[in-house]
């Protein structure tokens, strides 16, 4: 015993054990406790899950969450791609400018940016004012709609998508495109046959990460979204704060967690977990 | 500084316990010598150096520095200078910081330290660069800082792992001369790893030719070039023609197709196989009809390569592939497809391993 401890202390264990134990006690155990509560609060069994999946409201929330995540992912991809492409392909001062704007936005708190949209889309905001000026009266309600929260989430996650795309595109050799042109391919053809396929890993990385982030999004849907079209994170929050229903909240949290981890596991099966950040 | 001697006895290093990266090396280096390790990539030169410096533990064998076994001495107590292939300059320290580092570790007085750093920098010609950071220096300057840093604590033995590998040809030749000058001035023992044979030839007192973890030949540049021990050494060092034949009487070797070739060897057992080394430059090309081609050998030239100062004629003679090097002459007019008589002095023919 004594000797095995001292051997342990001379190896790498002494370096990684503190972090490992810390995460065990303050991350894995609390997480496991959620799983435990989902089967034991208030009664032992799968009652919480049955209640969740038999409530048409909750299933609707779950479906709405996936739908919103899909819309946000797709939209932000469409808008992010040209920015990342220009920054990676043409670089220069303009490329740096794009990257600086994106990086600044990336590091600005979600809350701050959500607040900005609250102002812009609000009743006294510029959009409403413009619509009124165009003769739209009474002006439509924009804030507190599914549109507002989806729109804001797209904006919030776009910098993230751009930076992920850029990380891959930066390494695409410009000579490929020149070679394709040299072989007679028109620019659009060269793009679809060379660049787009080469940037696919970036598209996959960005889409999966944005989708996963979106599934668990809490702040923005709660603040800007419609109380009728909830997303699952907001629903879990209600369940804790208003109902003090820990069992039910835990079951929903487990559904969200399994969906997230499942997607991620599937993804890293195909692309490799560690390739994500390099 | 006091030059140090080094003895490697039956040294073995295996990384994977199956193959030996260094395979039973014996080597004795005298104090003050300049010895090159020459060999192809992966032949174990760096590994040997790492064991001497103490960064790798030998699997077996002994390393003696000034007669004292040092396998158990940690690298920081060995007092051996080393110049790394990538220089390994500390990027966060100035040139002075780098060169002063070993003195600072040894808690030397500030003024002594300053003096010695100045001296080392002057020696490598960088006196005015003390306040720069490594990133602000050219490759050649970085290399010299690394050298100054290895010299400044007067280690007595300095290991250099392909120190000029990253430099362009001119700078390389300049640094070769500088290195030799410093070696002479300080009288330290130097071990110099390279896979550039010219570098090894021009700089070394002795060359150790490495192949697959072994030293195939240890000798002066002249010995290694003119009396190579093995076929590998003969072909690795310099340009060569290697001809296989059978020994006859009186040092004559019969080469199939080519005919009998006289050699200076005296100890060839008749009937035994023999390998002849004929360097391309020992041949002379003679005009037919001059009758000077004593052996009657002719070279059928397939290709002529112009090196500027010499021509390399590549072709066949008596069915044997042969490379012949002749000085460039405006009027020579050798061309592919030609057939020329060749002759050579038997004293220049070597029996490999003889």
């Amino acid at each position, binding site marked *: 015993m004594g000797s095995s401890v001292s051997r342990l202390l001379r*190896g790498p*264990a002494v370096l*990684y054990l*503190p*972090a*490992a134990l*810390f995460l065990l006690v*303050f*991350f894995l155990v*609390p*997480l496991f406790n*959620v799983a435990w509560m989902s089967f034991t609060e208030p009664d032992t069994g799968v009652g919480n899950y049955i209640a969740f999946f038999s409530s048409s409201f909750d299933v609707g929330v779950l479906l709405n969450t996936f739908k919103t995540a899909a819309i946000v992912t797709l939209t932000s991809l469409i*808008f992010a791609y*040209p920015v990342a492409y220009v*920054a990676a392909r*043409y670089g220069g001062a*303009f490329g740096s400018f*794009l990257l600086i704007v*994106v990086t*600044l*936005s990336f*590091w600005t*708190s*979600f*809350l*701050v*940016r*959500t*607040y*900005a949209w*609250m*102002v812009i889309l609000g009743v006294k905001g510029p959009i409403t004012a413009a619509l009124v000026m165009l003769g739209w009266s009474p002006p439509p309600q924009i804030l507190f709609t599914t549109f507002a929260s989806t729109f804001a989430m797209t*904006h919030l996650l776009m910098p993230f998508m751009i930076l992920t795309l850029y990380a891959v595109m930066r390494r695409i050799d410009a000579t490929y495109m*020149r070679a394709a042109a040299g072989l007679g391919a028109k620019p659009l053809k060269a793009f679809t046959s060379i660049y787009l396929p080469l940037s696919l890993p970036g598209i996959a990385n960005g889409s999966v990460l944005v989708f996963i982030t979106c599934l*668990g999004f*809490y*702040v923005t849907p709660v*603040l800007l979204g419609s109380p009728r079209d909830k997303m699952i994170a907001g629903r*879990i*929050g209600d369940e804790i*704060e208003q109902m003090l229903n820990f069992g039910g909240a835990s079951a929903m*949290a487990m559904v*969200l967690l399994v969906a997230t981890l499942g997607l991620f596991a599937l993804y890293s099966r195909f692309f490799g*977990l560690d390739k994500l*950040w*390099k | 500084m006091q030059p140090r001697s080094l003895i490697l006895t039956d040294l073995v290093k295996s990384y994977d316990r199956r193959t030996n990266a260094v395979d039973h090396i014996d080597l004795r280096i005298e104090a003050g010598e300049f010895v090159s390790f020459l060999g192809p990539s992966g032949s174990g030169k760096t590994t040997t150096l790492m064991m001497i*410096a103490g960064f790798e533990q030998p699997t077996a064998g002994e390393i003696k520095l000034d007669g004292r076994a040092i396998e158990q001495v940690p690298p*920081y107590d*060995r007092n051996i200078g*080393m110049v*790394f292939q*990538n220089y*390994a*300059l*500390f990027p966060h320290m100035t040139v002075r910081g780098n060169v002063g*580092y070993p003195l600072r*570790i040894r808690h030397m007085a500030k003024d002594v330290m300053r003096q010695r750093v100045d001296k080392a920098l002057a020696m490598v010609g960088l006196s*005015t660069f003390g306040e720069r950071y490594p990133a*602000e220096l050219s490759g050649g300057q970085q290399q010299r800082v690394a050298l100054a840093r290895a010299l400044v*604590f007067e280690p007595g033995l300095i290991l250099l792992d392909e120190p000029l590998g990253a430099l362009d040809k001119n700078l390389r030749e300049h640094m070769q001369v500088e290195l030799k000058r410093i070696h002479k001035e300080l009288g330290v023992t130097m071990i110099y790893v390279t896979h550039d044979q010219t570098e090894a030839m021009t700089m070394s007192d002795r060359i150790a030719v490495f192949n697959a973890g072994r030293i195939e030949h240890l000798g002066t540049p002249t010995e290694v070039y003119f009396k190579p021990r093995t076929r590998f050494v003969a072909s690795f060092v310099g340009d060569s023609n290697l001809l296989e034949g059978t020994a006859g009487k009186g040092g004559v070797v019969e080469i199939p197709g080519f005919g009998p070739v006289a050699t200076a060897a005296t100890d060839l057992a008749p009937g035994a196989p023999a390998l002849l080394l004929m360097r391309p430059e020992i041949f002379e090309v003679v005009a037919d009809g001059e009758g000077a081609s004593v052996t009657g050998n002719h070279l059928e030239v397939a290709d002529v390569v112009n090196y500027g100062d010499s021509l390399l004629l590549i072709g066949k003679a008596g069915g044997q592939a042969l490379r012949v090097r002749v000085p460039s002459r405006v009027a020579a007019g050798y061309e592919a497809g030609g057939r020329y008589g060749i002759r050579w002095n038997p004293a220049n023919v070597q029996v490999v391993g003889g």
Partner: protein
Amino acid sequence: MYSEKTFPIKLVAGLIALFIAAPMFIVIPMSFSTAPSLEFPPPGYWLGYYQRFFTDRNWTLPLFNSIVIGLGTTVLTLALAAPAAFALVRHDFRGKALLNLVLMMPLVVPHIVMALAYYSYFGALRLVQSYTGLILAHTCLSMPVAILILTAALKTFDRNLERAAANLGSRPLTTFRLVTLPVLKPAFLVAGLFVFIHSFDETVIALFISGRDTTTLPRQMFNSFLMQADPVLSAASSVLFTAVLIAVAVPAVMRAMRRRRPTPGRA
């Protein structure tokens, strides 16, 4: 010759970048607005909301709390992550893949799930509404970021530098202090900065487990959102944005200056 019209696509990219930057063009003018509620364009300008942000205890306390929690998280995260990063990059051991997985997991677990987890777990441990609880939670969530940055830096660290130091006579600890640590210093600074921002911005968990005396700035902002009209929010947002601007800009400027530093030899 190969040529391609780049203007249209650059225009599109520029417009999208403008869209990304747009919110800040709103928030910053708003923070100087005299309007008592969200109104744009502002009817007039003053500095009153900044004054409130920096003097009203409802805002100064959360700001202070967030800084304390951010600093605590940064120190604890680096203390745990740095040795782990060394183990991951420089050693092989059983369970390395598992360790890697666990270290990265906080990155993908939704914050609301962890909020629920901490709400009940820290409730039992009496750590709710305490600095300790928030620091522990934020440290878990920041671990992946710190590990990623530090392992990336360690992987590119030239081991020959340590060998050279040893060769020049320094013992392992001295080498670590004089060579390894200073060379890795930028990576530690970047990791520390990221961790701090991560903790400083974290909203969801703070919403559930901070409170009263430990309310963080994001929680305070979230709550004034719900109350709709507190215009100090715009001042708070502008301050946060400016902080990010400085954090992003200062290293870039410093790098540029370092490159231009005059380095004459002492002739």
